[in-house]
């Protein structure tokens, strides 16, 4: 006001219209002062608010990728690793000046060896995405083109274009142990196997870099450049022994070539710990290009249950031994056929009756020892033993050996589709039928892993371990983040005496002069049991069979337990007399199992346990 007064005072003439002009001028001055008040409000009172807006406006958070951890076998063979190789071609369409789009597109097309249509397409894409910060032109660029583009980039001829290294997950050994290792998706996220189970360990923790950028997305150096370094993923060491795994895969291939089966599962387990030394399935897949065949990617060793047939019998017998009902030399009445009242189908030993020479006449009845019955895999005797035990005892011993529940395998569990198998609850058992069926390995379904786990308990004196394959997880700084160790899943309740003495002798007999003579080795004594189970198709038992063999070696001091499950072998193999070999566990699975045992024990350096006998036989 004082100013206005001063100005008015200066008006010499005192003419009223002049005063009005001066009021206008004074008004403008007042407005300018008012605006400085507005400036004060914006710049001083609301400064923090606008500073935050400016910050949000002009900073971008870049992700700094770390490297995903590698996967190694127990003996440090790399099974999966991340490499940065090749380059993809990306654009920041905002940073491509509008008048240079056509030029950039044409130049790129010629560098990539493409034609004019390609150039026009790129130009259109750049135009359509002109408000965007990212557009991937080529996911992968050939190496020679990469070099040429790089040269042009250095010359500054390609504004807004960038080459970025491609992160690749590489599985150097291809199909090798693929069902264990698993694979990652395009987003580097584990999809199966160890890659999936240990995602949180393997995944790198990406770093952050906050940079200031101009409105076109160009980074501005030296302003607001904060870096939070990326953390690489941890490395995983499996319990898989690459030598044994190679042997397993090799033998599996030979078996597939010979017998042309639908599926095969082979597992090698360390007897005293439950650690998995090798695991392979057929069909398998190459994790470098997993494809879409879900059946091939499935780890059928844990997902697909089957009726075990005769492989189940040692468990029944162990149970009877444990309860003191029988000893290996106890005599049981033997008839090649057995009719159960109320059961339609007879139990028979058709095709593998126990030869007369083993029969013992007692009280006018033909009897055999329990030992011989198991060695010859007699169905009728097993049914009698099952009836002797009763359903409560049977059910108890089955569940105590880990059947009907998941194995606790560290690559298992519901999210990996692990099956618990099928053990019917007692109240669903039917009176005339269930005990005979269960006694000979039907009406129950088990996975290869469960079966091996149960046999491993017989081999190690009664401990049912959780199978495990993750040995160690080592952080990028060398710190051990996780150490695998044997864990008991359940105590079978079988004693050392029963398993290591009574049953061991019997199972050795199976290989020596029983159903699995094809598994005999000169160097090592194997203990095991064959299984030949008919498959149910369309509600009836069909001609297709599951041929299997499970065992451990060396029999008297077991180191490894091995299972081979061959599902629906179709191959016709002739014996030396020109007759086709029939498909049994002893003929199809046992030879493969024994070769795996031989080579694996050699690989592990286990001393031969019957050198003199070999010498005398030769």
């Amino acid at each position, binding site marked *: 006001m004082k*100013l206005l007064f001063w*100005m008015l005072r*200066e*008006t*010499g003439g005192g*003419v009223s*219209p*002049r005063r*009005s*002009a*001066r009021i*206008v*001028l004074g008004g*403008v*001055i007042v*407005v*300018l*002062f008012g*605006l*400085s008040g*507005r*400036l*004060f409000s*914006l*710049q*001083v009172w*609301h*400064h923090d*608010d*606008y*500073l935050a*807006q*400016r910050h949000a*406006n*002009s900073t971008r958070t870049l992700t700094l990728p770390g490297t995903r951890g590698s996967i190694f076998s127990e003996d440090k063979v790399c099974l999966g690793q991340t490499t940065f190789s090749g380059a993809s071609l990306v654009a920041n369409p905002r*940073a491509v*000046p509008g008048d*240079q789009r056509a030029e950039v597109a044409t130049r790129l097309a010629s560098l990539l060896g493409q034609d004019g249509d390609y150039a026009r397409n790129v130009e259109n894409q750049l135009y359509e995405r002109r408000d965007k910060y990212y557009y991937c032109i080529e996911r992968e660029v050939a190496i020679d083109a990469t070099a040429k583009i790089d040269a042009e980039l250095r010359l*500054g*001829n*390609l*504004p*807004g274009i960038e080459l970025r290294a491609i992160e690749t997950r590489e599985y150097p050994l291809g199909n090798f142990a693929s069902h264990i290792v698993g694979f990652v998706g395009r987003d580097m996220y584990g999809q199966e196997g160890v890659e999936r189970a240990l995602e949180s360990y393997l995944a790198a923790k990406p770093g952050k870099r906050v940079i*200031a950028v*101009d*409105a*076109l997305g*160009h980074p*501005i150096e030296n*302003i607001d450049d904060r870096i939070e370094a990326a953390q690489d993923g941890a490395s995983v060491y499996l319990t898989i022994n690459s030598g044994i795994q190679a042997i397993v895969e090799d033998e599996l291939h030979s078996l597939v070539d010979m017998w042309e089966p639908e599926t095969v599962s082979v597992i090698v387990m360390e007897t005293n710990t439950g650690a998995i030394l090798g695991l392979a399935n057929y069909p398998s897949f190459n994790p470098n290009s997993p494809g879409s065949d879900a059946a091939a990617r499935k780890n059928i060793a844990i997902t697909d249950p089957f009726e075990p047939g005769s492989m189940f019998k040692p468990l029944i017998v162990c149970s009877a031994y444990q309860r003191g009902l029988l000893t290996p030399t106890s005599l049981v009445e033997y008839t090649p056929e057995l009719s159960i009242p109320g059961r339609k189908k007879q139990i028979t030993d058709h095709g593998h009756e126990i030869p007369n020479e083993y029969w013992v006449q007692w009280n006018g009845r033909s009897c055999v020892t329990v030992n011989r019955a198991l060695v010859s895999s007699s169905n009728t005797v097993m049914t009698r033993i099952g009836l002797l035990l009763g359903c409560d005892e049977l059910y108890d011993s089955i569940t105590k050996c880990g059947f009907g529940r998941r194995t606790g395998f560290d690559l298992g569990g519901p999210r990996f589709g692990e099956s618990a198998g099928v053990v019917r609850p007692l109240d669903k058992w039917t009176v005339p039928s269930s005990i005979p069926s269960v006694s000979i390995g039907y009406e129950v379904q088990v996975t290869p892993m469960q079966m091996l786990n149960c046999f491993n308990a017989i081999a190690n004196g009664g401990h049912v371990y959780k199978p495990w394959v993750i040995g160690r997880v080592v952080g990028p700084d060398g710190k051990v983040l996780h150490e695998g160790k044997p864990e008991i899943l359940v105590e079978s309740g079988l004693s050392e005496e029963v398993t290591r003495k009574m049953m061991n002798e019997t199972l050795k007999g199976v290989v020596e002069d029983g159903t699995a003579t094809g598994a005999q080795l000169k160097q090592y004594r194997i203990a095991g049991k064959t299984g030949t189970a008919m498959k149910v198709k369309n509600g009836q038992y069909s001609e297709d069979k599951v041929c299997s063999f499970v065992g451990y070696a060396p029999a008297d001091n077991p180191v490894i337990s091995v299972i081979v499950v061959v599902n629906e072998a179709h191959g016709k193999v002739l014996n030396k007399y020109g007759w086709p070999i029939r498909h049994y566990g002893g003929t199809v699975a046992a030879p493969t199992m024994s070769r795996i045992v031989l080579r694996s024990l050699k690989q592990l350096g286990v001393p031969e346990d019957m050198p003199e006998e070999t010498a005398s036989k030769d």
Partner: protein
Amino acid sequence: MGYLTVSRTLRNAYLLNILALVGVGVVMVFSSSAIRVVPGAEIDPFVFIKRHLMFVGLGIAGMAVVARLDYRLWQKFAKPIYLLGLALLVLTLIPGVGTEFNGARRWLRFGGVGIQPSDFAKLALLISAATYAAVRRNELGSIRRGFLPGCMFVGIYVVLTMAQPDFGTSLFLAASSFVVLLAGGLRVRHLAIAALIVLPFASIVMYAKFDHIQDRIMTFLDPAKDPRGKGHQVKQSLIAIGSGGMEGQGLGNSMQKLYYLPEQETDFIFAVLAEETGFIGSALTLVLFVSLMIIGTKVAARAPDRFGSLLAIGITAAIGLQAAINVAVVTASVPTKGIGLPFISFGGSSCFFYLVGAGLVLSVARRCVSEKEAFALLQQEMAGERLPESARLSARARRIVASS
């Protein structure tokens, strides 16, 4: 230089004030435009500042020449000047002669240099209005002989500018020339009545006809509605100003000029200035404009004749109005309007003609006599000394001397 004894302080103060503003302009145009270097594109970072310096140089030369000339020369040539402005405005509207840019014909191109005739028109209209008001000083109070003809010759310019279309400049032309006419004796009552009749009608036509005016008003009412579009500029401008704080981010450190804020070296240069120099810098710039207006008003008050006084008032009002409107736009206090900040914004012809206008004020200031000086002159004359030419010319000085 014999007659520089008179009103030297006022003149020097005005000149210094102008040069200070021009200096701020040069620094800010450089700071806000040098960044326009797109990697890969061959653009000289100095291209804007070079052109700005060229126009500033031409403008200062023009100012020096005009300041030395007798301003009453322009009163004699008022008619040709008015007609020249008219001709240029008409030329701009002819397709093929006027250059269209952003949907409006505002430019005339001579070789590589673009000129906005409306910048010349501003000055031409001010000279004409001052002449008109000085010549018809006794008739301005009447509607028929003073008001209506005045409206007529201002109106022709206004309509031609509006046809470009340049709504902002036409409004500005009307405002600054009516200040001159009011100062010359036009009755406020007449103007108010005319405004009451014309404005509602005109504003409805404007609002309906020009989409961009609608957009700008809607944007002003709710800037958040379309932050990436029309509201973008205002929002970015506020962010620039607000993030300046008290002391600013430092010269050259504006973030918003990095393509976030459109027109950062022309209409929105004040936002960059506020961001880089903070409240201290932006308020000081406003103070420079206020002091320029005060000195200009003093020049007008001391002018030796009516034409000079009205000319000084007109130019002072034009500078002050344009600065106020620009700062109001940039601070989102009024709807967006494309109008530069005098002396500071990059913009060839605008800068040039404002400097020439400042030369006119300086030329008036040369012949100013204050009461104290008039008294001194009287004593000198009584002592028989030869008075400077400017003092002898000064009617006001005579009047003061006579009245004492």
